[in-house]
């Protein structure tokens, strides 16, 4: 009788640990997926080929061949930069004088969109951001005059500039000139 009850208890605990293992694996996967996908975005072959580490890059307009990031919008012209704050602040500047929608969005290493500035908010003024990590407050004397301090939750992250391009062929010159005002540079290289 005792042996039987000990055996039953043993099987119960074995079943329980299997269940807990499955649950932990499930939760860990859910937690890790956005971070792993972002790691591919930040360090993958597309990032390498566009050479966008602390540097703005200007991919061509979206087509059916654009397969680096899911759900690309064919109506937007994207510009990108992988920022890396491990060596210090990164300065982001842009002055796109464009008649339609544009925005600059920042994403942390877990994929959260923690900052966005669009054309209406910019109200015709240039965007000038001084991007710093959450671990260290910037010395005020380092922040360039007029720049806005933005704290990134992670040391690395992604900048995505969207420019509305309903008719890229017709407006190509204006759109390209506008988006190519984007600068994304480590403070040490300024």
């Amino acid at each position, binding site marked *: 009788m005792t042996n039987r009850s000990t055996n039953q208890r043993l099987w119960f605990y*074995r079943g329980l640990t*299997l*269940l807990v*293992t*499955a*649950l*932990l*694996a*499930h*939760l*860990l*996967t*859910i*937690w890790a*997926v*956005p971070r792993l*996908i*972002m790691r591919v*975005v930040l360090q993958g072959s597309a990032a390498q080929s566009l050479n966008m580490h602390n540097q703005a890059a200007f991919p061509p307009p*979206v*087509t*059916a061949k*654009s*397969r680096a*990031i*899911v*759900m*690309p*919008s*064919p*109506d937007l012209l994207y510009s990108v930069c992988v920022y890396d704050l491990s060596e210090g602040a990164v300065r982001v500047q842009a002055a796109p004088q464009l008649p*339609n*929608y544009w*925005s600059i*969005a920042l*994403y942390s290493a*877990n*994929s*959260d*969109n*923690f900052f*966005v500035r*669009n054309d*209406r908010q910019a109200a015709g003024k240039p965007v000038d951001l001084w991007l710093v990590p959450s671990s260290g407050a910037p010395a005020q004397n380092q922040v360039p005059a007029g720049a806005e301090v933005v704290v990134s*939750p992670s040391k690395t992250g*992604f900048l*995505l500039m969207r420019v*509305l391009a*309903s*008719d890229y062929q017709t407006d190509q010159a204006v759109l390209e000139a506008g988006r190519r005002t984007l600068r994304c540079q480590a403070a040490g290289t300024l």
Partner: protein
Amino acid sequence: MTSSKASNGKRWLIGALLYLGAVALGVGSALLVLKKAPWLNPSVQVGPWRVNLHAGSVDADMYTRASVAVNGLLALGRDETMYFIAAYDDGGQALRSNCNYRIQGSAPAARWWSITAYADDMFLFDAPNGHYSLNGDIAKRSAEGRFDFTSGPTEQPDSYWLPTPGKRGMVLTLRLYNPEPALQAAPQSLQAPHITRIGECQ
């Protein structure tokens, strides 16, 4: 002695296999949830369209964050952009690229909008005419201000056509840039575009 060792080894092997199975079950169920129920998370249904209220937000729970990373990476928060996704037509049938659909609606309360067709891998169809989406700038409207276009394998007469070659699942994404505050606060107030199947699927 040898038989006891063999029996112990067998027990360890079964134990290891059971734990590996548990890990596979955990990982597999997570991926299944993210792929097959992408908009399972806090969302609002308006007609055939579903919008996730926390997409792109720092307030997103871990399921929403992971689901958005898999199905719509680098989304913006709803004060900037709202993404309404339709995976079914008005009749409740799953959208298929080998079926023709008519999409009709009124311009949503936003600064700018577009509707894009994506294959079930969330990338664009290889449209031979280069039409991947319809947006508010190019949509022709009726006297009542309504737009109307079609998607599918066959071009319909007098219609802006989004080709969807192949035989696979698909979704339509309605993007609203700078939506009006009232719509942000009450996404269910959207006058949802209708998605109606035309004839039989090919």
